[in-house]
């Protein structure tokens, strides 16, 4: 069986390698991909949209529908993770630590809960005390990562990056908080409801900006028609529309990344985990 599988895999691989011989060379100006539309994008993007980075222009303006439904896919991924993994039953037993004495209490009855505050604190079953160096380094790093993420979102028109990357970086800064302290620190600061609302609002911002263009007399996603709504130079209106859309993508992606992480790592219970 193994031998047969090996033969099949080798044959398929050989066929695929044989097929690559027909591909155009890397960067070949005569390849079909660069014959028809590429020239137009390279020459006309700045005239059309006023955005120097034409990857962003192609992604959010010329092919805005594609990115909108991509954001919807990300949202659906977060929703799917939530529906599959979220477990509302709560935990049967909990561990508490009496802070002044260091005594650990094991409460088996889930009706009885101790007030967590100055006297008692939660303990996870697989709890490891957070390392001081890790904690301090992450505490210093996290704000910088978040500022960098905002920069990536805001500067998407001029340099590589955009809503998707910025959102992922922002989400991973929150995940870093959960890893360096513990999951409860993150869940306490970023509420689950807020994350859900953010994920939906991100998609709504994108679809909303696209839909506002229609009563203004344009097609769906035609940012140029938004000019009367925004004061300032009308040449920048497409860039502003793209920025708004990118912010929506960033918010949605950030929320979904954190939702997926929390649900995976705590088995849907949102109380203890990595």
């Amino acid at each position: 069986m193994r031998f047969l599988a090996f033969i099949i895999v080798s044959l398929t691989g050989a066929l695929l390698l044989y097929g690559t011989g027909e591909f155009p060379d890397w960067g070949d100006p005569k390849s079909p991909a660069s014959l028809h539309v590429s020239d137009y994008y390279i020459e006309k993007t700045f005239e059309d949209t006023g955005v120097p980075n034409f990857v962003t222009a192609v992604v959010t303006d010329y092919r805005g529908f594609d990115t909108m439904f991509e954001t919807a896919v990300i949202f659906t991924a977060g929703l799917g993770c939530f529906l599959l993994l979220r477990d509302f039953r709560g935990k049967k037993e909990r561990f508490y630590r009496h802070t002044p004495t260091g005594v650990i209490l094991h409460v088996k009855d889930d009706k009885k809960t101790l007030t967590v505050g100055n006297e008692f604190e939660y303990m996870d079953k697989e709890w490891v005390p957070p390392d001081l160096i890790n904690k301090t380094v992450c505490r210093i790093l996290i704000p910088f990562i978040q500022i960098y993420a905002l920069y990536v979102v805001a500067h998407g028109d001029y340099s590589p990056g955009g809503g998707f990357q910025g959102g992922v970086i922002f989400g991973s800064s929150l995940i870093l908080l959960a890893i360096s302290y513990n999951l409860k620190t993150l869940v306490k600061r970023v509420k689950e409801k807020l994350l859900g609302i953010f994920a939906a609002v991100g998609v709504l911002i994108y679809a909303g900006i696209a839909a506002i263009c229609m009563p203004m007399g344009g097609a769906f996603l035609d940012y140029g028609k938004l000019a009367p709504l925004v004061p300032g130079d009308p040449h920048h209106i497409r860039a502003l529309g793209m920025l708004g859309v990118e912010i929506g993508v960033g918010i949605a992606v950030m929320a979904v990344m954190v939702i997926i992480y929390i649900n995976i790592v705590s088995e849907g219970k949102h109380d203890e985990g990595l």
Partner: protein
Amino acid sequence: MHWPIDIIVLTLVIFCAIAALSVRDLLGTAILFGAYSFLMCLLWTIMGAVDVAFTEASVGAGVSTVFFVAAIFRTSRRTKD
């Protein structure tokens, strides 16, 4: 002089891919997969697709490695096959 770097990175990519398939420790596999993504990111940069490289670095090498580690944390670390 793009070619030598190109070929070195491509060789490392293939090594990482084979190692990620053959290592039995799943945590090691996750980290090798992160290395694979990062090397792919380098390849995209060499080819001039900086936007794709940025996405690969943040999503492939960053967040998805963390998701794998989180999933391994909740399942088992050794693979059976």
